């Protein structure tokens, strides 16, 4: 069905190739997962399928691609749109019209599909993706997951044989992401649609795909069944890391497949004593000696909300310096409201917030940000200067602080951006852009740091780097608060986990207590080894060694 033969591609004005002699065969009706580090050419590979590369990007091509009998390089995206549908990362930057129905009909109108047929096709895809109840809604009123489903419907309306998705869930919260992936599984199973998907969250997709294509930074490609590729790939979910180390064969790809191995080794029994011991032991070795906690942020009797509906009621919270606190909770439960109160963007109705002993009432956001810096969800909305170093200087100038080049160099080195010093921030990868924004808020050396969904769109490598950085800063005495949905990341870095429920905090404690037994928030490892207090791959590996 899909056939790459010795395909090489180079972007205009780039010295090295992006894809190097890629040869691949993907059969009709298969579900393929494309993995690879950021910048390895996943998107480029996908864009070769419908002719966006090279018709939209320029550059040089050698070799060939065939989708059934069609040659996208020769035919271009306009013709290929009938055969290959493509869905992109951003849930907001792929829509032309305001309403769901119109958006789905857009491509059909453009292709002059006769009206009677047009109506039928719109109805079909609305049903196929469960969008019928939303048909008249404005796209701006939909959630990210719903929007991605509309985007899928809009491409499927043209009845392509292949559906290509470029990280469709990377901007979504886990629930919406599941929504989208479920829809894909249905399309693949029920319609036999050929699907090619690039995705960071491989743990959710691995159990359902037939093939994995792994790219590396040099533009080379290996492909095969998931077990085969993941046996050697450096990019794998924690479950696979543990299974590989433990030598489990055949390699399990889901919790369900891994449980029998754990049971066989006698590691899955409920053991209350083991929970406390191993958990704390594992944690203590990771965090080093504990210091007496010094409160950095204190919230007393906080009540806040918008209009007439209070979101938070009577909330008390103390955050200590030198501690990483993770804040979790459902969408819309008030995490952002709490965050906005802490940084002064929203004035609380009642209660007091003190940072480093001083109340923030009556101080402006700029002043508060020097003591409690906040990284917003979209770091891009911050960046506009010509170079990375300039971004940091801008912040210093905003605060009327002297521009200290040595300080900038030091921070950039910490952030791993020394070599990017003079680059244009917007040209960097998402992980790097986020670290630039992190630099821009923390160049004033605040004692506390707030991060809002920092792992969105990051690959494993960038996440590990961010985790390391936060650990280091926390060891140096910073109070760090992270809002996140990403349980694997939370398990990896948290000293303390808070769960926000209706109106207030419903759980507060060390991660192995809060996450270990939660059906909703437990990471993969905790599900495989229930009751052992292991949350991360390294916990499990350590535990397995001791065994």
């Amino acid at each position, binding site marked *: 069905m899909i056939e790459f033969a010795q395909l090489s591609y180079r972007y205009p004005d780039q010295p090295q190739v992006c894809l190097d002699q890629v040869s691949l065969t993907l059969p009709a009706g298969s579900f393929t997962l494309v993995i690879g580090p950021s910048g390895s050419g996943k998107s480029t590979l996908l864009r070769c399928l419908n002719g*966006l590369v090279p018709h939209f990007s320029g550059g040089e091509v050698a070799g060939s691609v065939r989708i059934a009998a069609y040659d996208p390089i020769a035919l271009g995206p*306009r013709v290929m749109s009938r055969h290959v549908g493509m869905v992109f990362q951003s849930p907001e930057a792929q829509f032309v019209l*305001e309403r769901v129905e119109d958006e789905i009909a857009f491509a059909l109108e453009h292709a002059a599909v006769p*009206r009677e047929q047009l109506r039928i096709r*719109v109805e079909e895809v609305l049903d196929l993706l469960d969008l019928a109840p939303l048909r008249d809604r404005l796209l701006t009123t939909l959630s990210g997951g719903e929007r991605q489903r509309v985007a899928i419907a809009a491409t499927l309306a043209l009845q392509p044989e292949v559906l290509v998705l470029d990280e469709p869930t990377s901007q979504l919260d886990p629930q919406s992401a599941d929504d989208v992936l479920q829809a894909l599984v249905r399309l693949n199973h029920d319609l036999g649609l050929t699907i090619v998907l690039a995705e960071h969250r491989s743990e959710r997709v691995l159990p359902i795909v037939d093939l994995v294509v792994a790219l590396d930074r040099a533009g080379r490609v290996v492909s095969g069944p998931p077990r085969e590729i993941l046996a050697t790939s450096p990019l794998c979910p924690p479950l696979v890391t543990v299974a590989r180390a433990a030598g489990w064969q055949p390699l399990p790809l889901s919790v369900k497949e891994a449980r029998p191995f754990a049971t066989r080794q006698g590691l899955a029994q409920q053991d209350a004593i083991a929970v406390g011991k191993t958990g704390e032991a594992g944690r203590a070795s990771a965090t080093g000696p504990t210091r007496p906690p010094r409160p950095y942020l204190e919230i007393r009797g906080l009540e806040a909300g918008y209009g007439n509906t209070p979101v938070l009621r009577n909330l008390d919270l103390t955050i200590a310096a030198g501690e990483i606190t993770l804040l979790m909770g459902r969408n819309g439960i008030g995490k952002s409201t709490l965050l906005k109160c802490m*940084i002064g963007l929203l004035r609380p109705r009642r209660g007091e917030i003190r940072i480093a002993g001083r109340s923030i009432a009556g101080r402006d956001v*700029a002043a508060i940000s020097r003591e409690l810096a906040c990284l917003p969800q979209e770091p891009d*909305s911050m960046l506009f200067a010509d170079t990375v170093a300039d971004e940091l200087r801008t912040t210093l100038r*905003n605060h009327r602080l002297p521009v200290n080049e040595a300080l900038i160099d030091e921070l950039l080195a910490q952030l791993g951006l020394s070599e990017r010093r003079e680059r244009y921030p917007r040209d960097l990868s998402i992980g790097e852009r986020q670290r630039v924004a992190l630099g821009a808020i923390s160049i*004033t050396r605040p004692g506390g740091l707030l991060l809002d969904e920092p792992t969105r769109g990051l690959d494993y490598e960038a996440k590990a780097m961010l985790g390391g950085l936060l650990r280091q800063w926390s060891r140096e005495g910073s109070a760090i608060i992270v809002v996140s949905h990403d349980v694997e990341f939370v398990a990896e870095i948290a000293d303390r986990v808070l769960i926000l429920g209706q109106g207030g905090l419903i759980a507060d404690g060390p991660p192995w207590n809060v996450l270990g037994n939660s059906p909703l928030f437990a990471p993969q490892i905790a599900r495989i080894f229930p009751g052992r207090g292991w949350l991360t791959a390294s916990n499990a590996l350590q535990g397995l060694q001791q065994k």
Partner: protein
Amino acid sequence: MTPRSLLLVHPVTWTIWLGTTLLTVSLTRNPLYLLLLLFGLTLVAETERPTGRATPLDPIFFAVIAVSFGALFNAATIRYGDTVLVALPASWWLIGGPITLEAVVFGMINGLVLSALVAGFGAFGTAMPISALISLVPRAFYPLAVVMSVAVTYVPLTIRLAGQVREAQQLRGHQVRVWRDGLPLLLPLLIGGLERALQLAEAMAARGFAADPPSNQVRMMLVGGLAALFAGLLLQFAWGQVVAASLTMLIGTGLILWALRESGQQAPRTRYRLYRRGIRDMIVLLGAGLTLIAVLAPWPGRASLAYTPYPMLQLPIFEPLLALALMGLLMPVAVRLGDRYLP
């Protein structure tokens, strides 16, 4: 609410109604009829306004301003009419001379004409949802219709992003002290917009969007048509050759319209949303037709449309039949109010 439920008559019917309204207003100088039209059109705008939406420009308020301004300006610049109110010293630069009642009235009529036009446009604007307006764009301008759709879709998004950018900049200590501090707000928005445009363009291309540039044949027709229009203009106004001028201009008009048609047919499109025509359209069109006949057909009552206060102010003639015919433009109100009783 769907565009269909908002719109009781077809967008084309509304457009014809607007055309008739504009023509009627510009042919009328009788202040009595103008007032009638102004109030009638304001009523149309009011009944069409979806509940909860504010009127962007109140026609009556606009009329008060336009009428007073028109009166002031005309009185200050026009020097004839028999009823002199005040005489300013002739030595006053630009405005010296007698101020006459006739000039004041004439200016007020100017203001009324403008206000009635604005009221007509206002009614049209409130009645038509944006998507219906875009559906009226001729096929030749399909790419521009898409540009409009994209822009309308991105306005709320851009407003949200602007809020995000403002918060993000505050978080790094940005404060707006002088107006140049707007730059850190504007630039991320612009860069974000450009990046979004790149992504959107890819998504559009992946769904088969590509515009077809007009062929050279079409462009030749445009050049020919424009040349004919220009020649006609010279013939008419510089050399006074009325017949030849009209002919040339007609040819030019034909060429340009033909070019638009050709260009629209190069790439066929279909439409998903279909606005149906029905009994309501008939009612509105009949009303507009009645008005049109009354203001164009040669009958005695038609003369009362014209009115001039010069040289000596007199009362305008009021012809009840004509006034009744003008009320044909109020049919949209009837359709809206009587919607329940119509099939």
